[in-house]
């Protein structure tokens, strides 16, 4: 019941914020904030009170019949993986609402309706264990995100929004076909029509069919992740979106792709995924290097940060398909820490654009003397992004690399070179924007108290994850154990 409540709070909160905005914009903001905060504390309570899963797979679940004729159920459940990602969702959700506080002044109500519905869709993706429901939630994320970019975005917003929509929609269709195929294959084998995750888990299937279905899922998730070659929607969408949109895109939407791989691709098609793993790992490493390389070439602050996501999510892909406990744990820690550090960099980029009305780093320089607190925060998150030990991202990436070494020394070494590449773009960002002479004579206010609070919370979170990541690791441990027990687990 609690799980349904998480989604309902967001859906209803969104509508309420929309309605309230007719009277007062700030009422809409407060309603949105309270709704997301409520979800955050409910999830936090769930995490603290039930840290260890019992005998079963799920920590808690909620299950209703929905369309019984074809075996569709409204089935929500959480395990360690989804619990961590839900926490991240609501954590970043709160920060996105705060980041939009000053930035969004047009159609405030509709903005918050969209923002909360995206979050509801994301929460649905992390909670659904019925494939029909999962696909429904998957598409629910898409439409409000399209509006968010197309209405409140920057110069090229329509182009970016359409590109985002086409990429995700097309790849989503492949997943739908794969879901239906699995549905019929399962019926053929057992005579039961069901979309239920746990029942589909051990469906017997021919290797060829399994490979095709696995690829259907993989491509859908690969677009979201994004995997190199399918990544080009990302820089446009991230750059053009408003700050909250960028934070949600980088911090959460990309994670739904990684989540999908962990939840569906590996467990549903273990043999096919195992056969495909070397390719996926190579793609991950290529993404690490190419993403960092592209980031280094950018002069637009937000575009630079956007490409760093391609690089960091390469570590996640590498970690998932390395498929041992070190790398899997590393992938999840990277997912969470990337959400925070990159989210923070987008908030900083937004704060700068709000003040200077430009994202072009050639127009910046010497900002350290003008906005020291903002610059210090930017330095901190740039360091997190380049994988400085002591901050969360390092733990994740190191575990992935350590695990990957057991599978492929070559790929692990190449990915480690990617960590070096991260230094290039992170230092370029700091140098171009904040150091050097203040050539353009900027004189703008430093971080406001509420912005400072957002930064401080994120700094503390990254330090905590960097120095004491054990709570995250132990929460995810049972899921890792299940993944390792799969027939093809290594």
């Amino acid at each position: 019941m609690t799980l349904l409540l998480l989604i309902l709070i967001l859906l209803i909160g969104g509508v309420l914020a929309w309605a309230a905005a007719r009277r007062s914009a700030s009422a809409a903001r407060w309603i949105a904030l309270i709704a997301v905060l409520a979800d955050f504390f409910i999830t936090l309570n769930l995490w603290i009170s039930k840290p260890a899963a019992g005998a079963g797979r799920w920590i808690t679940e909620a299950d209703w019949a929905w369309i019984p004729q074809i075996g569709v159920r409204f089935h929500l459940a959480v395990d360690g993986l989804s619990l961590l990602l839900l926490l991240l969702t609501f954590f970043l959700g709160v920060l996105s609402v705060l980041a939009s506080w000053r930035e969004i002044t047009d159609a405030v109500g509709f903005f918050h309706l969209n923002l909360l519905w995206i979050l509801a869709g994301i929460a649905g993706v992390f909670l659904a264990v019925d494939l029909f429901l999962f696909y429904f939630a998957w598409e629910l994320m898409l439409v409000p995100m399209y509006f968010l970019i197309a209405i409140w975005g920057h110069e090229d917003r329509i182009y970016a929004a359409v590109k985002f929509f086409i990429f995700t929609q097309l790849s989503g269709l492949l997943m739908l076909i794969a879901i239906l195929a699995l549905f019929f294959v399962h019926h053929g084998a057992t005579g039961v029509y069901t979309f239920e995750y746990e029942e589909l888990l051990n469906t017997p299937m021919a290797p060829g069919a399994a490979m095709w279905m696995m690829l259907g899922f993989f491509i859908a998730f690969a677009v979201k992740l994004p995997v190199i070659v399918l990544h080009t929607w990302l820089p446009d969408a991230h750059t053009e979106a408003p700050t909250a949109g960028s934070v949600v895109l980088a911090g959460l939407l990309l994670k739904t792709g990684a989540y999908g791989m962990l939840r569906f691709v590996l467990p549903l098609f273990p043999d096919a995924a195992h056969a495909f793993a070397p390719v996926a790992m190579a793609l991950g490493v290529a993404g690490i290097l190419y993403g960092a390389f592209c980031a280094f070439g950018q002069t637009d602050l937000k575009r630079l940060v956007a490409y760093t996501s391609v690089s960091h999510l390469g570590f996640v892909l590498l970690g998932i398909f390395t498929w041992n406990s070190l790398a899997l744990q590393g992938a999840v820690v990277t997912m969470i820490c990337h959400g925070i550090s990159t989210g923070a960099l987008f908030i900083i980029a937004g704060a700068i654009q709000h003040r200077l009305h430009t994202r072009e780093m050639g127009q910046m320089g010497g900002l350290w003397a003008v906005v020291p607190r903002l610059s210090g925060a930017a330095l901190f998150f740039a360091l997190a992004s380049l994988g400085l030990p002591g901050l969360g991202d390092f733990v994740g990436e190191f575990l992935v690399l350590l695990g990957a070494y057991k599978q492929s020394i070559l790929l692990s070494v190449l990915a480690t070179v990617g960590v070096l590449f991260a230094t290039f773009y992170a230092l370029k960002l700091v140098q171009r924007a904040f150091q050097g002479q203040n050539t353009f004579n900027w004189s703008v206010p430093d971080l406001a108290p509420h912005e400072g609070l957002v930064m401080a919370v994120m700094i503390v979170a990254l330090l905590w994850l960097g120095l004491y990541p054990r709570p995250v690791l132990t929460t995810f441990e049972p899921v890792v154990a299940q993944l390792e027990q799969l027939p093809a687990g290594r």
Partner: protein
Amino acid sequence: MLGLLWLVPAIPFAGALWLAVVGPRLRERAVAVIGTGSIAAATIVSLLIGAQFLSSPPASGAYTQTLWTWVGVGTFQPGIAFYLDALSLVMVVVVTFVSFLIHLYSTEFMHGDEGYSRFFAYMNLFVASMVTLLLADNLLLLYLGWEGVGLCSYLLIGFWYKDTVNGIAGQKAFIVTRAGDTAMAVGLYLLFHNLGTLRIQDLMQAAHDHWAVGSPLAVAAGLLLLGGAVGKSAQLPLQTWLPDAMAGPTPTSALIHAATMVTAGVYLIARTHVVYELAPAAQFAVAMVGILTLLMAGCSALTQWDIKRVLAYSTISQIGYMFLALGVGAWGAAIFHFMTHAFFKALLFLASGIVIEALHHEHNIFRMGGLRKELPVAFWTFLAGGCALAGLPLITAGFYSKDLILWSTANSPIGGALLWVGGLIGVLFTSLYTFRLIFLVFFGDVKTPVSHRPGMTMGGPVMVLAALAIIGGFVKGSFETLMTTALPPFHEAGLGVSELVSSTVAGVAFALGLVVAWYIWVLHPALADQAVEFSGGRLLHRFWFSDWGMDWLYDRLLVRPLVWAATINKNDVIDSIYDGIAAVTTTFYRAASLTETGKLRWHAAWIAGGTVVTLAIVMLL
């Protein structure tokens, strides 16, 4: 008392954090008290711990303190844990004490700088990272300190960020050292994958148990760790960042060169000595890196005109001696030279800071001169430091430590005559460039008038260090005994060169350098210029001056192609695939829409034509 060990890194960390959060709002004096006080407290704690460690050593010869498990996945359980033995104890005491003197000096040197609190926050973080590195019980925590040190060097070299050149120098330091760290990280994967732990002591035991002498894995591990060490310690081929690191404030240079950072590589190799003992090839590589670096840097030092760059190359060269010592298995000698070097190199930098500040930030030694009478404190202390660096026999600390290295090289099975002679040539070069520096700066005519004389907070630390640069060598005997509790003793074999012979030859090399320097730069100042006149001399001079052209090579080979390619690819070549698909689609749509003319007979004709074609296909197939 040993239980207080965690305070040694924790106090400077707390100081850095405190200054980072509230520093900008504090007055200069308060910042100075917090910044210097934290290091003073860390020094006192480390001295107390040292006293207890020496008076009642732990039974196993080491003390371990675990605070918490850092990361825990399966068998991978590195902790936030500290390990104290004679090796880390000596390093920690020297590092904290020298750092304290440098901090004290900085309170006056940085007076009036707008980034005063930022400076002390970075400096405290620097010391904290270094101490963490030294005390780390496992290689992952060591790596944390290792990267932290690299970060702080970046921050401090680029401290005066308004000048882009400084920022670039800082970036260079961070990136070049991180290139080495990449190798080191791979080394960590290798060690964990093959030996199943990253706890240094367990690791050494496991390596000893599982690996035979000369096994490929041991060699690979040794070379990979060496990769990290040459980066941090500015050895061949990654030494290029260090001369540029002079862009930072002078106390920073003292800290980077003397107490922290550059000696990290030496420590890493000494700490993992078991791996090198199992991998003679890797250990020989260490010796070769050392000897080549010390000779090349010695030549470069001879041609520099910037007082700080001369000292920078001298650092590279002296670390080369430490690597040589490690390479020939004289573990204790390397650490002994680290200690004396920390004293005299910090002294030289701080004294040169006095000179630079006295002459309106003049760095060019050819515009200095005659400062012997103008700045007596700087002169006498610099002279003491210079003599220690060049190795003035019997009196200075530098002589005792370097002499030990030379003697060990001569008598080691790995070393031998060639390495020994190389080391002796290095002594000659050291003496040459050191006295060239001293004669040009402090003798001759006054070329730039002195505008500013140092106060006691700058003069005091310099005098303390000068005393240590002299007397620090007299503890040689007891130092060696202490080191044998943590490091294997030196195995004598080979040439059978006695200590007396070795010392005498080294003394002669020193004297030769001194005399030649006196002849060239005091008696016949035109001689040096003449040497550069003819083409061969000029070429050699340019070659040495530009660090053997390595910077140029890296720039053309790596930096420029990468920047060029990244700039070209700004619009992401992969996106053109999708642009292509979009363009094709648009073309077809345009072509198709051309047929929508709205004219009835055209539509009728298309329908008729289509019907005919369809019927034809149906009938023919």
